[in-house]
């Protein structure tokens, strides 16, 4: 059986001659300037961005694959990997729910002080990661505001997993909201109005109309949020207490190994995080492409 030919996918008929390419010479630079600028930028990016990435993998494999596998399969490394995954699995969904709620409140309604609220949501980005950890120590630490009450009730936050989760939530707080707010602003409320006037409930409108409209933007925010959550170092370092096999996340484990001059193992664990970063970049490029569709689809009507 032959497939029916879809004519819409075929190339348009060729012209008998190539169209003239007009380079507007007045608004571009002379070739030597162009090549100089491109070459400078490429050398800079290669030396400055790519070389560190390459260095991670070269250093990780310096003593052979055996050492690499050993470093990754070390019980402390495995528990660090597990803790990192657990923390991200708690922090990311919470921030996702918050991000969607905040974006809905900010973009689908009018109220005074909206811009101020958006600024407050962005606030954690301008706070040093170390300060992000410190604020929870001041509250839950032994000398903190809630410290005595917590020790009475035998409940630990600082130097325990809840503190790590809290600090991670703080530093990844704005990611989802910040991606969704411009997108949902652009999309307006017309689609939702239509659904509501046709008798859909608020929840139906959200799940059947809004969510499909924002899904790529949402995934994009979640992706960035997750990358930061798994890689956060400063904030987590303050609250974790660095107890091996207990409160050590992957980045903290890298630090411990490095400070013990166990460079090959440090770079081995680091290479796992670098792979995560690369995966994030690939997915991000894909989502940006889909997100472009999402935006242009809403701009059409």
């Amino acid at each position, binding site marked *: 059986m032959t497939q029916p030919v879809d004519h819409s996918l075929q190339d348009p008929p060729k012209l008998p001659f190539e169209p003239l390419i007009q380079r507007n010479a007045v608004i571009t630079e002379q070739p030597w300037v162009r090549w100089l600028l491109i070459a400078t930028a490429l050398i800079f990016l290669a030396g400055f961005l790519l070389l560190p990435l390459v260095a991670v993998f070269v250093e990780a494999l310096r003593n052979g694959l055996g050492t690499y596998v050993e470093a990754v399969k070390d019980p402390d490394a495995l528990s660090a990997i597990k803790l990192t995954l657990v923390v991200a699995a708690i922090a990311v969904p919470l921030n996702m729910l918050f991000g969607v709620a905040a974006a809905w409140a900010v973009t689908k309604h009018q109220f005074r002080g909206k811009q101020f609220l958006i600024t407050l949501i962005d606030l954690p980005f301008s706070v040093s990661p170390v300060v992000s950890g410190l604020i929870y120590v001041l509250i839950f630490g032994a000398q903190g505001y809630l410290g005595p009450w917590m020790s009475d009730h035998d409940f630990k936050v600082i130097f325990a997993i809840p503190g790590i989760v809290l600090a991670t939530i703080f530093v990844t707080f704005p990611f989802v909201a910040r991606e969704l707010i411009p997108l949902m602003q652009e999309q307006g409320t017309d689609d939702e109005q239509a659904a509501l006037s046709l008798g859909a409930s608020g929840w139906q409108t959200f799940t059947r109309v809004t969510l499909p409209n924002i899904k790529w933007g949402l995934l994009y925010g979640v992706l*960035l949020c997750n990358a930061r959550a798994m890689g956060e170092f400063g904030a987590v370092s303050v609250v974790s207490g660095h107890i091996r096999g207990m409160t050590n996340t992957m980045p903290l484990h890298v630090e411990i190994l490095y400070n013990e001059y166990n460079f090959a193992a440090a770079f081995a664990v680091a290479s796992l995080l670098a792979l995560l970063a690369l995966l994030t970049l690939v997915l991000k490029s894909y989502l940006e492409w889909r997100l472009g569709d999402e935006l242009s689809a809403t701009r059409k009507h």
Partner: protein
Amino acid sequence: MTSLTLSDPRPSPPLKTRRVMPGFGLTMGITLVYLSLIVLIPLAGVFFKASGLGWDGFWHAISTPRVFNALKLSFGAAFFAAVFNAVFGLLVAWVFVRYEFFGKRVLDAAIDLPFALPTAVAGIALTALYSGNGWIGQFLEPLGIKVAFTPIGVVVALMFIGLPFVVRTVQPVLEEAEKELEEAAAVLGATRFQTAVRVILPTIAPSLLTGFALAFARGVGEYGSVIFIAGNLPMVSEIAPLLIIIKLEEFDYRGATAVAAAMLIISFVMLLAINLLQGWSRKK
């Protein structure tokens, strides 16, 4: 005269029956509660604690030479790194927007590597490259340039961290810039260089300034990528966030809080100033 009102060409006002979107109370409630519990109340705690020191106590805690040097290094290194990034970020954004070359799309994606790569990984990788026997360090050492374990190392780490901020804020503005203006300048007899400085640069200046500010703000607070390469010599290459951690480990909560409050205040004031500057340059 009634016919005039009947044929009024103005569009009819929106229907009064326009529905109000549901869920405001619920989503706003979630937003405010979560924001307060996670961000606002804990942050306010720092200022509350710092105000407990009193003005004298606060000043006493941050006016020691060690704290002063750490703050100076954090802000100074972040400033130099941001200046460097403004120059090279602009170059990279320009090359990406205006020229075509092999591998552009992959490199464009790679710009975000410093966002995606955990800071501790960046830190140890940069240290490996720039230490005396590293790939880059071995060429700089004979020239008498020591990067790792000196303040220069701090600047290098912050340059790595801050680059995407400048590129990603300048790039979209450059893409939208009207080429007609450049044509007009050329027709009126400007050289290409004059056009670049007098026509293109003013258009992108606000975004460049924003990128600079974002890179600077991130650099001031940066910790993970810096501590490995800095060497952390007190008074020389010790950054303010590290000093906070050291004070915490010594159970000097008041000292740590004072440094944190000082950092927060200076950061907020500078972000505010830059916002005003930007609003002013937009109006012009």
